[in-house]
């Protein structure tokens, strides 16, 4: 079995565009990477990749579900006029980063294009005087109209051009690091678990469509019915003009979610574990919702105790997302140790103070 370095994994996992709902490219890569690491890999009905690894405990064993979403934000062709393409968004994209952006049109052929902001005199008055909204931007492939019509149709997904860049010794910049950084941590965890003996069953889920509906996690959760779910996602890192009270520094550790989405005893368990392992972390208050797969996962069937672990990421939903490799490593180590050391009777500890003793 090959084990891959973090950098190689990250390169492989950021290369496929895999826009929400159009995830074959990333799902295949995840399947290829996970196949040697788990007992069984399958794709569920909505497209999530599920890896199953049997535990060493006596059956029936409790189930731990580790989830990171595989889909990425992007754009879609919504119209074609005189060879120029109209665009709409998949997931949330700030239109202000689009002018001059290189994109790939995934038509019958993959075409490179540039997003264009027309000069003001070609725009209606309502689109002038500020940022130009997405409905007034174009994508230009540089090809003649007849060629464009041949290869492109309305509905073709459009991804940011791939551009993987290492900045200094620790930071990595690429499109789709939300959430391939977490998929990388999850894959590192599966690699590491190969030499460990978890007693619980581990179900790794590379979930689909998080950026649109959280549909992959909720359906996988129903299918697996885990006793505990741990969601790994990205959170906002501090950077130029970010509010300090909503962001976390790059390279200084992961965040542990705290709020109605997260089971308080799970939070405590992860906090204690992080302290024991000397993994730097910050509590991330999530007063209403987490903005991750966890929000719907916790209400699957009769309810699932859920935890959220996040990797700080700068410039989220742009083509120049930045994460720290150290933070990815930390997230991987934390979930690995949790999965490897969780006791067979752990669920008994996950009690509310008021739960009647039996």
């Amino acid at each position, binding site marked *: 079995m090959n084990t891959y370095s973090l950098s190689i994994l990250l390169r492989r996992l950021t290369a496929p565009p895999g826009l929400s709902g159009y995830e074959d490219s990333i799902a295949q890569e995840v399947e290829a990477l996970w196949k040697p690491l788990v007992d069984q890999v399958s794709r569920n009905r909505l497209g999530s990749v599920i890896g199953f690894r049997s535990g060493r405990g006596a059956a029936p064993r409790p189930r731990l579900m580790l989830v990171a979403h595989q889909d990425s934000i992007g754009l879609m062709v919504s119209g074609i*006029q*005189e060879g*120029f393409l109209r665009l709409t968004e998949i997931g949330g*994209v*700030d239109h*202000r*980063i689009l*002018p*001059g*952006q*290189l994109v790939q049109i995934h038509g019958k052929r993959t*075409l*490179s294009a*540039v997003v*264009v*902001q*027309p000069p003001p*005199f*070609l*725009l*209606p008055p309502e*689109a002038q005087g*500020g*940022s*130009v909204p997405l409905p*007034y931007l*174009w994508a*230009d*492939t*540089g*090809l*003649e109209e007849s*060629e464009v019509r041949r290869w492109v149709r309305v509905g073709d997904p459009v991804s940011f051009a791939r*551009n993987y*860049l290492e*900045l*200094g*010794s*620790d*930071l990595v*910049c690429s499109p789709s690091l939300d959430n391939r950084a977490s998929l990388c941590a999850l894959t590192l965890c599966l690699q590491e678990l190969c030499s460990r003996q978890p007693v619980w069953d581990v179900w790794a889920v590379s979930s689909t469509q998080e950026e649109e509906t959280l549909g992959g996690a909720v359906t996988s959760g129903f299918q697996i019915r885990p006793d505990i779910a741990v969601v790994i996602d990205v959170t*906002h890192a501090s*950077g*130029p*003009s*970010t*509010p300090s009270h*909503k*962001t976390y520094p*790059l*390279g200084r550790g992961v965040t542990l979610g705290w709020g109605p989405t997260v089971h308080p005893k799970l939070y405590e368990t992860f906090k204690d574990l992080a302290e024991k392992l000397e993994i730097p972390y910050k509590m991330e208050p999530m007063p209403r919702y987490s*903005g991750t797969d966890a929000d719907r996962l916790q209400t699957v069937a009769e309810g699932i105790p859920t935890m959220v672990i996040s990797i700080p990421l*700068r*410039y*989220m*939903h*742009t*083509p*120049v997302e*930045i994460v720290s490799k150290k933070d990815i490593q930390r997230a991987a180590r934390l979930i690995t140790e949790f999965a490897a050391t969780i006791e067979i009777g752990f669920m008994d500890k996950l009690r509310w103070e008021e739960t009647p003793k039996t």
Partner: protein
Amino acid sequence: MGRNAENLNQPTISAEHLRLLEKLCNAVAVSGNEGEVRHLVMEQIKPYVHTMQIDALGNLLVYQREERSKPLTVMIAAHMDEVGFMLTSEEDKEEGIFRFELVGGIDPHHLAGKTVQAGKGRHKGVIGCKAIHLTTPEERRSSLSIEGLRVDFGGGGRAKVGDWGTFTTPFQKIGGSVRAKALDNRLGVAIAMELLKYEYPELNLVVAFTVQEEVGLRGAKVAAYALNPDIAVVLDCTPAYDLPLQVEDSFYPLENERYNTRLGRGAAIYLSDRATISDPRLVAHFVRTAEEHQIPYQFRQAGGGSTDAGTIHLQRAGIPTLSISVPGRYLHTSASLARISDWESTLRLVYFALQTLPVDILQSDR
């Protein structure tokens, strides 16, 4: 040596020219820091020219032959510099985050979300943008201003205050088009380089590869003084705004009437812009040449904008000047786009016009 008239009788754009343009576009030469392009040009044209000089501002002045023995001296000018930015202040040393200011007319709408390079070591960084999740709809309706943007080297860069920088978009050929940063004006530079390979029976050819065009046509001014030509032809790249009109109100025109130039319609001949009225005798000669040789051409719509002609034609006692441009979309952004056919038309038009330039053209009526 490449002076064989038979081989070179019909200038065309070959794979070799595309490779040269790729090198020129991928080179970084923001106004005031044109060394990389100057070096490339000198290396390539050396076999074809008699003298190369670098003047006080950094212009590369080229004399094709030793003597000015022919009746007319024609100066070709093409600016080497491109728009970009300079790092002006280090805001966070540990994080490698810099403030910057623009050099030349970049529309700030095109900055966010791009990879950039700065300094001699081509240090890679990015210009980011706060996550959409942390913005309000009102915020997103207003433009991102340069005041709020930073170049982020991710803590590892060795970039420093004073470094010039620009986008990293790699050159790419797409069908019959090329897409790159700095097509304005590496296309003009490439054409000027090619013209030096040919003999012109009736004229002395001098070429200025100029600096600092994008910050006010500075290099061309002193180059024209030094070269002291009878006539100047400026090679540049001019915007093609040939996009669909998005206004349906009947008050407004029904089609795009302000395209400036259109891709695929050939060499763009200037009649007048903000800074220059082209010499009508030169315009007439170039139009006649295009028609005789069936070279596609178009008139650049009169209006704003300017080229090196703006300072050249006012040098000394006046120098009759004409600008010819390759039309290009999205100039002054991270990724501009031009047609190879227009590049070729421009090259051929200037070549044939110089071949047939009447020695008494300046004695003829306007």
